[in-house]
């Protein structure tokens, strides 16, 4: 047998043995898609179906309710503070971790990931232990008028904590992959540090950065457990959008609850759509 026919024969013999039969493929695909439809698509569909159950007029009225608008405003303000802070941190962390070699890097990366593994409720708890009536950091605030718990600062703090690793996590592998050759070239051509960052590094990471910011924002706006613990649930004042959804739902005002929820679900869908587009256009898939 000459080599070429031998290769051929393996391929022919292997054809049925390295892939599944048509029936198996069909069965597996059906199981996978049914699971996704049952567990993911149906709940998503329920949000919009329930929101519009009593028609567009009820939907519009629910969205323009004063307490609802206050909740939307608070949610936007909180994430408008939390996301930029995590953005600055994410870039600084990625710059030091991806572009330099130093001792303790693994420990640093582990600590950055830590908020991923803390329950949202426990996140709320640690800030209550810190700033609550008998909290260990409460004496620091004694002489000031600063109120952290049951106010905006507390909501911002837990939002930062919960979304802490997102942007850094998105940027570190991206910047590691790109190395630092381009930056070194820019520096050797006389650019200073900032110029190098603005004109070389930033354009290279902009899509990953955008995606990290979107994700961070979606999570910050949607955070429930941690915010619920520190916010105090003051209607019209310290209620964020997810907390308002809970209140309306517990009052059996289902149409309004789902109308509010549909805003958050739309935000999630936009985030997923942009992710899909970025992945397709810029090969962001890891």
């Amino acid at each position, binding site marked *: 047998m000459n080599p070429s026919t031998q290769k051929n024969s393996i391929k022919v013999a292997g054809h049925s043995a390295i892939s599944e039969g048509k029936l198996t493929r069909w069965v597996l695909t059906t199981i996978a898609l049914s699971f996704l439809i049952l567990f993911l698509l149906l709940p998503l569909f329920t949000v919009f179906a329930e929101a519009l159950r009593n028609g567009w007029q009820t939907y519009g009225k629910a969205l323009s309710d004063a307490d609802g608008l206050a909740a939307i405003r608070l949610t936007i303000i909180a994430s408008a503070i939390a996301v930029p802070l995590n953005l600055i941190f994410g870039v600084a962390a990625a710059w030091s971790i991806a572009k330099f070699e130093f001792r303790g890097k693994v420990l*640093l990366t582990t600590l950055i990931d830590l908020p991923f593994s803390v329950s949202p409720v426990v996140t709320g708890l640690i800030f209550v*232990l810190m700033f609550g009536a008998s909290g260990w950091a409460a004496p620091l605030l004694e002489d000031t008028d600063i109120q952290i718990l049951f106010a905006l600062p507390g909501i911002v703090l837990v939002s930062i904590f919960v979304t802490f690793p997102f942007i850094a996590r998105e940027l570190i592998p991206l910047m590691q992959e790109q190395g630092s050759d381009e930056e070194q070239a820019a520096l050797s051509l006389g650019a200073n540090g900032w110029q190098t960052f603005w004109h070389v590094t930033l354009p290279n990471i902009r899509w990953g950065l955008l995606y990290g910011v979107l994700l961070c924002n979606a999570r910050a706006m949607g955070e429930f457990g941690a915010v619920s613990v520190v916010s105090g649930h003051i209607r019209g004042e310290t209620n964020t959008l997810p907390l308002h959804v*809970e209140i309306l739902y517990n009052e059996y005002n289902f149409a309004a609850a789902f109308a509010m929820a549909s805003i958050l679900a739309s935000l999630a869908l936009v985030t997923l759509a942009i992710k899909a587009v970025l992945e397709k256009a810029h090969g962001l898939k890891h």
Partner: protein
Amino acid sequence: MKFKTNSPLPGFAPALFYTVLYLALIVVIPLSGLFFKTAELGLAQFWDLISGERVTHALMISFATALAAAMINAVFGLIIAWVFVRYDFTGKGLFDAIIDLPFALPTAVAGIALSTLYSGSGWLGNLFNKVGIEIAFTPIGIVIALTFIGLPFVVRSVEPVLRELEKELEEAAASLGANRWQTLYHVVFPTLLPALLSGFALAFARGVGEYGSVIFIAGNVPYVSEVAPLLIVIKLEEYDYAGATAVAAAMLLISFVLLILINALQAWSQRYKASSGNVNAAPDKGFVA
């Protein structure tokens, strides 16, 4: 040994300084407060606070439901990852984007949607009621919510490894006379196992601490469907900070022990791993909650 290897790039000191400062202020210092508070309690009081029947029930329910959901997700997540990497079908891109929905959809929204869907008058709840299965307000409801939350962890952990898997290995097994099932069982599955376990661990850890998606469908009946995070919230509302801290510490402690066990299992599953190869590719943590 020097702290830092030389590099011509500027900005290391200020970037690292800011990173460490921000990390300390936001994460490390607040989190350490929880440990000091727990240490303050002392062993006897700690045990007293967590050995009450309501607390042990809540802990048991949280861990048992998270374990069940992670197992369901390991099975179906593996099938989903396989189908999306290996097969082509219409609507693949759309479904692929939807897999990440639980990462992006706020937990409270998922919670009220699942609760409505599975309540006695909901579409699915109604269906299950007819065959005598109650889902809402039972531990089954909690498992369903945690399955929703955990699915992408498994799929996104397994997918990159499956994509890197060399077809030649399967061809070699086939050419040596293995049938398809033998190839999958002896060649493909052992390679995927470490990634599957890490997805399982992520889904499990997330499930134990989950609150928003669970409380609506669970009904929160003490001793039946009350989860540990909810008990922390209840204790905080009663200003019982010591009790809340003890439950949180117990939760973290048990999670930690279980994750060590899963890590050991993972190390064991990698015993055949070749020194090269990308078997241990990190899961897509970027989208992990």
